[in-house]
């Protein structure tokens, strides 16, 4: 029997169904592919009707797009998940401790574990946050950790998302869709529920309310508006939490509080879950041209009159340049060895690393430090000679702007294609809630899948799809 170099989460390396998938596969094997195909189309109609679409910037309303959904779930065993959760929790604790430190006494810089320039020359660093004591001591109320898998139980962190991670509505709607289409699957498999996420989120946010808030704090979601690509998710979360969805022009600072204009006058908000970037949050304190934010909200925040989730300035912890320091960060604040692996990373700002990267471009993935969405990156093994030459020039011109990583052999999970089950590369983004009451990780997350054969790019803006993610009960 041949061993495959790529690990498939259903078939392993040796074409033997792995234990977590056995039950599902037995069911799948008995199903009529025609019925499943019809179900797949039904899922699309369901998504369109419920409006789970994302807007493409600068296009007309006709351009509300669906993210393709694949009906084959990604399945993780309970024990695998328990191990993963411990690593995620440790990492999220370290991120919060790091943020508190950076915006206070900066012990980690004094200890020389991170170069000062990494912080002070970083656009994500917000000097306005220096010395601010955030309510409940929580900086990152909601975190999404992007993971990739390379073998059984072998997960690597690809990226931390500590600003305003998106996609959780897909986690919830994917499950809802599977429950509606294949209820029988959920009586055969004991899948841990994700549907409590919105309630957990509301509780978690309320627990972070400023001291002056009443017993039942007023929570609201701040959206840039209906033309934002993630508007559906903003509305969805507000709806599921049972809180108001506000835009900047609904809000005003009155008597030292941020208040929303209701039909009965202005009402103060205690916790604002903002889905607006730092720069646009407050035209008086950040970008003066912003129409999306609330003038003066930062002053209220600094005076303890409101909780902003996530706190401004958290970007300093999920920046791709900082990423390479995460193992040091985890050790520094927890005193423990990191449970979750980082992908080995070369910082092109360092001459030795740059030299290595330039010599090995064909084998590496090179990323822009501040890029996102899978744009502006080079995937060496699949790039053309011209792409590589172009990137070499860019690297030489602005080495600080890039990091490089080896191309990991990412795992695959089958999708339901015309020809039947076909392996495709996946990643995983679990969602983590942080409050003074503790850290809560929803069992599952968003599995993104590269629908093109061999592709490693899972971003929805570049042809990625999603899957329901199952964590089985032990």
């Amino acid at each position, binding site marked *: 029997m041949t061993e495959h170099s790529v690990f498939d989460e259903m078939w392993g390396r040796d074409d033997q169904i792995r234990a977590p998938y056995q039950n599902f596969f037995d069911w799948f094997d008995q199903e009529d592919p025609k019925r499943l195909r019809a179900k797949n189309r039904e899922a699309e109609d369901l998504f*369109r*009707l*419920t*409006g789970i679409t994302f807007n493409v910037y600068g296009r007309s*309303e006709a351009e509300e797009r669906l993210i393709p959904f694949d009906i084959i779930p990604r399945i993780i065993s309970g024990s695998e998940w328990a191990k993963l959760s411990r690593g995620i929790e440790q990492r999220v604790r370290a991120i919060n401790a790091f943020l508190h430190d950076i915006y206070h006494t900066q012990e980690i810089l004094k200890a020389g574990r991170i170069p000062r320039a990494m912080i002070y020359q970083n656009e994500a660093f917000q000097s306005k946050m220096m010395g601010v004591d955030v309510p409940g001591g929580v900086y990152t109320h909601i975190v999404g950790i992007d993971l990739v898998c390379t073998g059984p139980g072998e997960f690597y962190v690809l990226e931390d998302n500590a600003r305003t991670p998106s996609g959780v509505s897909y986690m919830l709607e994917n499950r809802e869709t599977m429950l509606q289409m294949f209820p029988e699957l959920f009586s055969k498999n004991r899948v841990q529920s994700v549907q409590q996420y919105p309630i957990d989120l509301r509780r978690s946010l309320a627990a972070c309310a400023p001291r002056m808030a009443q017993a039942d704090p007023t929570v609201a979601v701040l959206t840039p508006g*209906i033309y934002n690509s993630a*508007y559906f998710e903003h*509305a*969805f979360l*507000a*709806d599921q939490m049972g*809180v*108001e*969805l*506000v*835009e900047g*022009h*609904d809000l005003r600072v009155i008597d030292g509080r941020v208040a*929303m*204009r*209701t*039909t*009965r*006058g202005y009402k103060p908000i205690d916790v604002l879950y903002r889905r607006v970037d730092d720069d646009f949050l407050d035209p008086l304190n950040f970008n003066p041209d912003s129409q999306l934010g609330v003038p003066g909200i930062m002053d209220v925040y600094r005076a303890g009159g409101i909780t902003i989730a996530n706190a401004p300035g958290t970007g300093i912890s999920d920046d791709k340049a900082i990423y390479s320091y995460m193992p040091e960060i985890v050790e520094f604040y927890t005193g423990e060895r990191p449970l979750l692996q980082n992908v080995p990373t070369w910082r092109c700002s360092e001459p030795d690393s740059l030299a290595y990267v330039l010599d090995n471009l064909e084998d590496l993935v090179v990323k822009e430090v501040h890029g996102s969405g899978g744009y502006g990156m080079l995937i060496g093994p699949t790039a053309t000679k011209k792409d590589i030459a172009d990137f070499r020039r860019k690297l030489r011109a602005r080495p600080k702007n890039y990091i490089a990583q080896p191309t990991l052999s990412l795992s695959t999970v089958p999708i339901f294609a015309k020809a039947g089950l076909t392996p495709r590369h996946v990643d995983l983004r679990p969602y983590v809630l942080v409050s003074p009451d503790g850290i809560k990780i929803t069992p599952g997350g968003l599995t993104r899948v590269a629908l093109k054969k061999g592709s490693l790019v899972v971003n929805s803006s570049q042809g990625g799809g999603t899957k329901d993610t199952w964590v089985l009960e032990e």
Partner: protein
Amino acid sequence: MLGKTANGLFWMYRYMERAENTARLIETGQRIALTRLNQTDDEWLSVMRSADCLEGFMAAHDEVSRDLAVDWMLRSKDNPSSVVSSVNAARQNARLVRTAITGDVWEAVNSAYMSLKKALTRKVSERDLPSIVRLIRHHAALVRGVTHGTMLRNDIYDFARLGTFLERADNTARILDVKYYVLLPSARAVGTSLDNVQWESILRSVSARGGFRMEYGAGGGPRQIADFLILDRRMPRSLAFCAGKLCDNLGYLADGGDAGAGSREKVDALRDGLLSQSIDAIFEFGLHEFLQKTLKELSAISRQIEQDFRFYA
């Protein structure tokens, strides 16, 4: 509730109501055209005047024809009251207030939008018009039905109802005003088959033909029609009925307090005016003058509601 949300709800329901009313007007126009008792082009002029979209039409076109008029009222993006524009606006508002409406209501509005967008991609042929009109009415009924069946009876519902009944009253007043001359006592004696068609068209355009026949049998002339559509409190599209609903919903919103006092004062005046008058007194006052006055009052009420409940600032 956010002022913005109240605004969104109010307009979402106004636009849904408008889409349905426009569809009904098109249906009426088509029916009259088919009877061939009249210069059909004139009829389309008056239909468009009823739908308050004639001015825009004349600015965009050099001639009047059935095809152009139907297309303008059904599909034109340049006509803010066309069915397509109204349904788009209703859905846009529904997106804005997604957290205030139930999932069922959102899905009903979204499915109205999706299916009408598909059905109205191309010009609608005469042959397909009846089924398109049916489709529009079906979707409007669905939105109304799930609203009734799934929404909490709270301030969200009250704003939805205010939008519905303001638009409906406005629509009924407009239809009557365009045709007021066939209802005047001086026209009564004529009694030609043409008049019968005209009266019938008024009843049809507010879906009141069945109700009217139930009430008056084969009898009933213009005076009864005017009475039915203006003063009858059982007829769900009459001015008196709509005014009563506006009073009720503003009352629920105030809940014994003084919220919306300005709007309530204006709506009370409208309703009391309708309840205390006889149809003869209205004719004496002048039907056209009365309807114009009512339209002005309705738009003042709309502005007052915006202001009282902080829709914009």
